[in-house]
């Protein structure tokens, strides 16, 4: 009934000892044959290591091997370059006596998400797609394997959204991803609309789009997609994170705050003003929000040459920051240094924090009404109020009020799969350009790239394109 083959990690994501990757469909066996190498008699490798990656695959009896249904085979999964990903147990189940009533292959690999993800990616590279949520069960039903009550539960799965906080933060992240993908789609659509107008209304004097422009554009998008794809391999939520700079006059508690945020002692903390001479960068993930925190030298008017460099660097870093945490010392009066910083960061996204709330308050911010109202009172020393900062960062991020200059991570295999396909289409665009193809051929793959990206954000883009053509070009009798 279904002719495409689907695959997914079938086990619950977490730190289980074993993960299972399930492949279902006509192509399952073929894929398994391509990626599995049975462990040979002459080899005894228990734990493939990095340095064994280049081992000669001819040592393995891969050629004359064939899968025996319902039999657990022991061996390795290799990627396209014949490099070993993991040692596995693999089982092939022949249709129709399987869960989905299709050919099914299940691969048991080591626990942890990395190995399972890599295997899934390899499987996808061999011509199947990621299963949608509940799709194995759906096939089981549609192929007559389970009954209606069970199937209705599947419909619930298809329609439901879980409410675990983890999911929600992931959804927020996906929202941010959507934003970026949407902006790429928008750019592609601009180009496409111009191409389509040239094709559908050739007699009008709209500017013909140049091949050079399409090439530059496509190259640029490939770079952008590459960056998104590469983030998928880092295992962090963000490659770069929100660039956050902690500013404040010397000895206001910047490094202490940073250490709190990092949960470890990375920057030197002293009582002597001006000890943090240079800037230090650290990555941290706070409630699903990735931060790249930059600690700076205390900003103070100084004649000390070394410290001056640090101060300038600090203000310079603030220029590039997505978010500034401005620290005041509530036990001291507002000073010239404070005002200087305030002036410098007036156009930035800022979280204002009054440190040393455990001491007697001397700070008076009444001249800065808004800041006085917004400021969070904390005491790093007494570990008080710090959660408020974290909440504030997290809410600003998810409300989208912080603009992130760097890229998001893709930790969804389906997204990665589509990004790779979109990139492939753009490479086809470049190939066509190289071969002097006319614009209407180039357009085919450009449109395809847009369709793939549209699948990530879940919308059909063709109607939007029509609107764009009419809105942006002057055509007609």
């Amino acid at each position: 009934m279904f002719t495409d083959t689907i695959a997914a990690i079938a086990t619950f994501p977490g730190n289980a000892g074993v993960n299972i990757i399930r492949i279902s469909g006509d192509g399952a066996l073929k894929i398994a044959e391509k990626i599995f190498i049975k462990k040979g008699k002459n080899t005894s490798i228990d734990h493939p290591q990095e340095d064994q990656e280049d081992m000669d695959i001819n040592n393995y009896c891969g050629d004359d091997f064939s899968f025996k249904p319902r039999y657990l085979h022991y061996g390795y999964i290799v990627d396209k370059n014949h490099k070993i990903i993991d040692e596995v147990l693999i089982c092939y189940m022949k249709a129709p006596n399987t869960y989905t009533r299709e050919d099914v292959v299940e691969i048991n690999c080591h626990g942890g998400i990395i190995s399972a993800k890599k295997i899934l990616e390899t499987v996808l590279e061999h011509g199947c797609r990621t299963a949608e949520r509940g799709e194995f069960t759906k096939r089981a039903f549609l192929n007559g394997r389970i009954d209606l009550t069970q199937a209705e539960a599947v419909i619930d799965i298809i329609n439901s959204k879980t409410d675990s906080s983890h999911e929600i933060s992931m959804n927020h992240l996906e929202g941010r991803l959507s934003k970026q993908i949407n902006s790429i789609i928008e750019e592609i659509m601009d180009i496409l609309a111009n191409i389509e107008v040239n094709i559908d209304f050739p007699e009008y004097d709209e500017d013909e789009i140049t091949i050079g422009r399409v090439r530059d554009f496509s190259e640029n998008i490939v770079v952008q997609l590459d960056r998104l794809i590469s983030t998928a391999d880092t295992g962090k939520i963000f490659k770069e994170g929100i660039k956050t700079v902690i500013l404040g006059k010397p000895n206001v508690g910047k490094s202490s705050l940073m250490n709190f945020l990092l949960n470890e002692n990375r920057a030197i903390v002293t009582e002597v003003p001006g000890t943090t001479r240079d800037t230090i960068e650290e990555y941290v993930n706070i409630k699903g929000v990735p931060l790249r925190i930059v600690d700076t030298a205390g900003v103070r008017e100084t004649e000390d040459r070394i410290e001056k460099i640090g101060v300038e660097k600090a203000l310079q870093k603030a220029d590039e920051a997505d978010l500034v945490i401005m620290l005041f010392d509530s036990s001291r009066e507002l000073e010239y240094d404070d005002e200087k910083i305030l002036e410098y960061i007036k156009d930035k996204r800022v979280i204002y924090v009054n440190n040393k709330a455990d001491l007697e308050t001397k700070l008076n911010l009444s001249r800065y009404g808004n800041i006085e109202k917004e400021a969070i009172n904390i005491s790093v020393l007494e570990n008080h109020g710090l959660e408020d900062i974290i909440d504030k960062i997290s809410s600003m991020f998810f409300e989208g009020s912080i603009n992130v200059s760097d890229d998001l991570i893709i930790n969804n295999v389906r997204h990665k799969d589509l990004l790779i396909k979109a990139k492939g289409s753009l490479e086809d665009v470049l190939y066509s350009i190289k071969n002097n193809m006319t614009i209407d051929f180039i357009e085919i793959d450009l449109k395809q790239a847009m369709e793939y990206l549209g699948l990530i954000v879940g919308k059909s883009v063709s109607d939007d394109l029509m609107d764009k053509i009419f809105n942006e070009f002057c055509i007609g009798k």
Partner: protein
Amino acid sequence: MENIVRDFLAESADVVVIGAGHAGCEASLASARLGMNTIVLTMSLDSIAMMPCNPNIGGTAKGHLVREIDALGGEMALNIDKTMIQCKMLNSSKGPAVHSLRAQADKRKYHTEMKRVLEGQENLKIIQSEVISLKVLEDGSFNVYTRLGAYYNARAVIVTTGTYLKGRIYIGELNYSSGPDGLAPANELSHSLMDLGIQLRKFKTGTPARIHSDSINYDKMEVQSGDEEIIPFSFMTDKIDINQINCYITYTTEETHNIIRRNLDRSPLYEGVIKSIGPRYCPSIEDKVVKFSDKERHQLFIEPEGLDTKERYIQGMSSSLPYEVQIPMYKSMIGLENAQIMRPAYAIEYDCIDPTQLKLNLELLSIKNLFFAGQVNGSSGYEEAAAQGLMAGINAVMSLKGKAPLVLDRSEAYIGVLIDDLITKGTNEPYRMMTSRAEYRLLLRQDNADMRLTEKGYETGLVTEERYQRFINKKQLIENEIERLKNKKITPKAEVNEALERIGSVSLKMPASLYELLKRVELNYENTLCLDEGRPVLKKEIKDYVETVIKYEGYISKQINQVEQFKKLENRKIPGDIDYNKVGSLRLEARQKLEKIRPDSIGQASRISGVSPADINVLMIYLMTYNNKKGE
């Protein structure tokens, strides 16, 4: 004194077609040619196949439609081949998929020739009469009543009323009830259709002024001439040898724009008098000046209306400004300083139906054997109308004969895209065909319309034996030549490599077939003649076709794969008697949309706006149990 007309049954027929515009002509010809006793009723015998707007046939995507009509056995291509006065292949610098033919027509001749074809058609009666109402009888047949009291009984009716239904013309502050181009409107039929439960709505369109040719200074304009060698529309036409007439390009000026801006409050489009929706691709000059205010000038085309007339059509200048404003406006354009307006520009508003009330065979969902085609379905353009007329004509006959309808899908023809778009998605503006609407553009070329559709037309019975033999011969020649090129081995001999270098290609290291060699960018069928001893003499259309198939093989096979994916969902049919209220878990919006459109297949359902992938899943699961239960 009251006029009392006594109704009388004038005649009975298998099929009655209401209207003889481009849709009505194709519908009535198809019906009559398929052996049905057919009557076509028209408001005026002088307006058969009339072109009330632009004097041309074809253009991007529209040219594709004309060729598809031809391949299926329709008339439009043959008629324009007989009456064209200029012809151009548009987009010839781009790839073969977007090459599109466009011809300037001699309007009067186009009408006369088409009328002649209708008059000579066996089984077809042409009658001048205004249809005022339509009744469905208990036996499922129809009575079609006319103003003169005569009524006609028919087993099937095809409505092709164009822009006549409650037509209203707008010129500035003035508006009055009228059909296009001063012809009478059809006011009563609208009510009758509403009484049948059919939902109507209002669309609008417009046309520019016609200017006397002697008042135009062509010296100030760019000449646009036709192609040196004319490629005919019809696969049945061998050669067209005519003296072509020029078109001209000119522009608006700053003064034109000032006049328009000063008088915007007198344009019913801007004063909100016309509330109906006009086509975005065909905006009035007021629209263009306001919306694209940064453009210093707008391009215009001066097109002849025919050989025996001095009237010139000013493409790009449709307007609903008052006549008083139109005069200085047209005179402000380059080369039109002395322009003498023969017919002013006007906007026209008309009733049409919401096409989502139809099935893919163009039959009304709610009334069997009542078909709609053309502009009354919310489309725009002669070609779009003709394509629908042809399909409605064929399908009315199929229905009466109890045969399966002829429905083309999106991967088979532009006609399929057109009808699927209208019926599945509906339209909020007069719908124009564009190549960008077709997903599988590379497969739906104008050069292979016969390869795609002649067979289907032959099965239907509309394609003549002569046309079919011609098609078979052409197909054979193409296949033979491709096979020959595949078997033609080129070896890396010195003289071969010399020849290759002479053409600007790189030398050969391994033997290769000429088929493979032709994929090189710099090589083509013509310049490889020196490598191809004993090459047969073939017609240009065959050579071009072979070259396209070889050169773009990779792209074509990519699209064929996409079509295979597409077909999977198209082939999953939804039973006609499905009750969407019984499908649990469907969202309300999806349920309503599905109930309204009643798609034939899962594929069609997935294209309905407001039906989500989750809804499709739910539907598939329901269908599975539904089919299982039926099987029990």
